[in-house]
């Protein structure tokens, strides 16, 4: 039951801050509260208790309680039947497919119809700082929009401000029509709700830039424990992708040494992992290191560059690579043929005669006298 005084405190936050508790010291907030008509007769400890409830887990003790998954003892669970269904009899959603009309579609998926980004997928995009993660993915969103105007795309930026975006837009006018949510606008109030709304709303293809930065903000600004923030965001991404059929792209960071920064949970739960790297001569390329929708083109580098304000994929070097793979397969078959011919010529029974000298293994006794 919520007490009368608690209702009074909640009403205050609802009226003044839209239901969110602003950042800052609780004592400062309490002093302001006391000057408000609703502040009358409320003690500091009660006020603090309500804030804790409104803010969610903040103290290590609170976080431990809420973030720890405690398995319910089997005996306490009401018995139920396991639902085991043959794959062919499962109910599948009608998967949407979004196309950029570029070579990249082939890498996103190798199913029928020329590839593309399938709904119901959670994807990670990684690469070292400055390699072009945001550039490539914003270009992807812009091209989907241009190719399929009905597609609902969304760019969620937690790192960039309006000013930063202006310079991006200046060099890439193609992104003009990319709907964008600047999370920095909600850093004071409604940060969590904004993320939830954006990920579970009407959008089909969503780019989160970046997953790690949102976690850092949840930790530093709202005081969440990083493991809790990580699990919360990852669960939300999986819910949006798997439960709601959206295609989510999470930009993640990488160390200079090429190590992935982020949880193993996210890494394992995702459909694909796309890496953007610097190649020979500082040419940039992307490649999928994991892709449950396009396994045949995993680990195949696709080089790209910027031209006329957009990302251009290097078709010639891609074709060359595919040709090289064909040749390599032929060569492998040829080597097997040559080995068979070798065996037939040298290791057949006709050559293996028993009258020839037996091979000798080197031993201490096996000496040769040197003539003086």
């Amino acid at each position, binding site marked *: 039951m919520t007490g009368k005084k608690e209702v009074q405190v909640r009403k205050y936050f609802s009226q003044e801050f839209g239901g969110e508790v602003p950042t800052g010291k609780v004592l400062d907030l309490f002093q302001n509260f006391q000057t408000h008509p609703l502040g009358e007769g409320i003690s500091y400890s009660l006020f603090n208790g309500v804030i804790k409830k409104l803010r969610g887990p903040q103290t290590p003790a609170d976080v431990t309680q809420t973030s720890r998954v405690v398995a319910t003892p089997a005996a306490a669970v009401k018995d139920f039947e396991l639902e085991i269904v043959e794959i062919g009899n499962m109910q599948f959603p009608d998967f949407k497919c979004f196309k950029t009309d570029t070579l990249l579609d082939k890498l996103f998926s190798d199913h029928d119809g020329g590839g593309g980004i399938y709904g119901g997928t959670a994807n990670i995009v990684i690469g070292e700082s400055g390699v072009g993660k945001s550039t490539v993915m914003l270009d992807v969103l812009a091209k989907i929009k241009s190719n399929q105007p009905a597609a609902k795309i969304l760019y969620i930026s937690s790192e960039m401000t309006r000013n930063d975006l202006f310079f991006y837009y200046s060099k890439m006018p193609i992104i003009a029509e990319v709907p964008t949510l600047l999370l920095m606008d909600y850093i004071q109030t409604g940060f969590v709700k904004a993320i939830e709304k954006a990920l579970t709303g009407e959008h089909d293809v969503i780019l989160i830039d970046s997953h790690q930065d949102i976690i850092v903000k949840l930790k530093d600004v709202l005081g969440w424990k990083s493991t809790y923030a990580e699990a919360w965001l990852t669960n939300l991404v999986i819910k949006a992708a798997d439960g709601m059929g959206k295609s989510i792209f999470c930009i993640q960071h990488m160390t200079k040494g090429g190590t992935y920064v982020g949880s193993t949970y996210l890494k394992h739960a995702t459909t694909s992992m796309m890496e953007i790297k610097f190649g020979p001569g500082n040419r940039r390329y992307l490649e999928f290191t994991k892709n449950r929708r396009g396994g045949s083109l995993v680990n195949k580098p696709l080089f790209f560059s910027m031209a006329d304000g957009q990302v251009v994929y290097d078709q010639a070097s891609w074709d*060359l690579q595919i040709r*090289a793979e064909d040749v390599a397969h032929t060569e492998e078959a040829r*080597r097997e043929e040559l080995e068979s*011919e*070798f065996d037939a010529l040298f290791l057949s029974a006709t050559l293996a005669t028993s009258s020839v000298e037996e091979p*000798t293994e080197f031993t201490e006794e096996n000496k040769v006298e*040197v003539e003086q």
Partner: protein
Amino acid sequence: MLSQAQFNEAKLAAINTEPLTKPVMLSEIKLSDNSQKDGFIHLNDSRVPASGAFFKQLASLLNINQTLNSKFEKNGDAAIGNKLIGAVKHYTENRGGDVPLMMVANRDHREITGIVKADKFARISNETLFKTAEGILNEVPDMHIESIDNGNGTSRINLIHTSEVGFERIGPDEVFRFGVSLVNSPTQTQVDDFFYRLVCANGAVAKDMTAAFQLKQANATGIAELFQSLKAYGKTGFVPRAFADRLERATGTRASLQEVQRAVDSVVGNLKHEDPEMRRRLQESVVDNHFPMYKSTMARVFNAGHNPDFLTDKQKSFVKTGMSVWDLVNELTWLGSHNTIEEYENRARFKAAGGSLFAKSNYDLEAAQFATI
């Protein structure tokens, strides 16, 4: 230029003489006491003929000193050499050195001719080599096959572009056509630079110039690198980056007695004739016609009180001759590119010998003028 029929004929010949290969572990090769002497090894309980080159390469793989190994052979102590190989092989196998190897065999001679570490075997098949050449011909307009040299287990396809590049600053005759040479040795595929001097229709193959490419691995990545490098050469018109500078140095530097003698030895040693007397006369004639400065330089050394036969290579490399390095390159490549009255075992090697001399990083007398300061 080669016709399509000649190209097809050479392609078929190269495919039919493709070396056979077999991946083995070092421990699978068994030697007996007389393996080296009798020329065989044991593999999977079969007695398999093996050439002298095979044993040399096996010894080299086991880090056995080649001079020592040759000495055993020379002194009739092949059995000791054999024991040494066996002992080191046994030791290597038992100390983490039982590595995967690739054996190469000549199907016509029915013997194993070579062995390398499996990761050093970087070769595409002759069929793919010829298909690659066809690909270049299709993709690069005005590209032609200048010649194909098949022999000694190696196939070399020399491709040349028709556009002419002149270096008139160096000389009015210095006009060239450039291209590439696709080379398949029994264990290695590589791309050498190829250039053709118009005035005398000399073709030269130059390894180790800036544009040369060596296949690192015979998988998709390595093959993609090969295609990429060919594409890159095409963009620059196949002209090696340092060509002009090297040409200038070669024309401005006198060839040393050592450089000339090496060229002479290579040519006269390759000349063949059944009659020894006739062979000797032909050798003299080749030296007089193509390396006239050789004899006069030898005479000069003799008159100065030295016996040229007793000079070391180092001493000979300080002796000037009357011809430039570029003259010497041209004599070699001319002999490699034209049919002459004399017959040679392998004329095509002179193209490579000329190219190698040209591509040498430092000519013997390149800095000779500083000796007088």
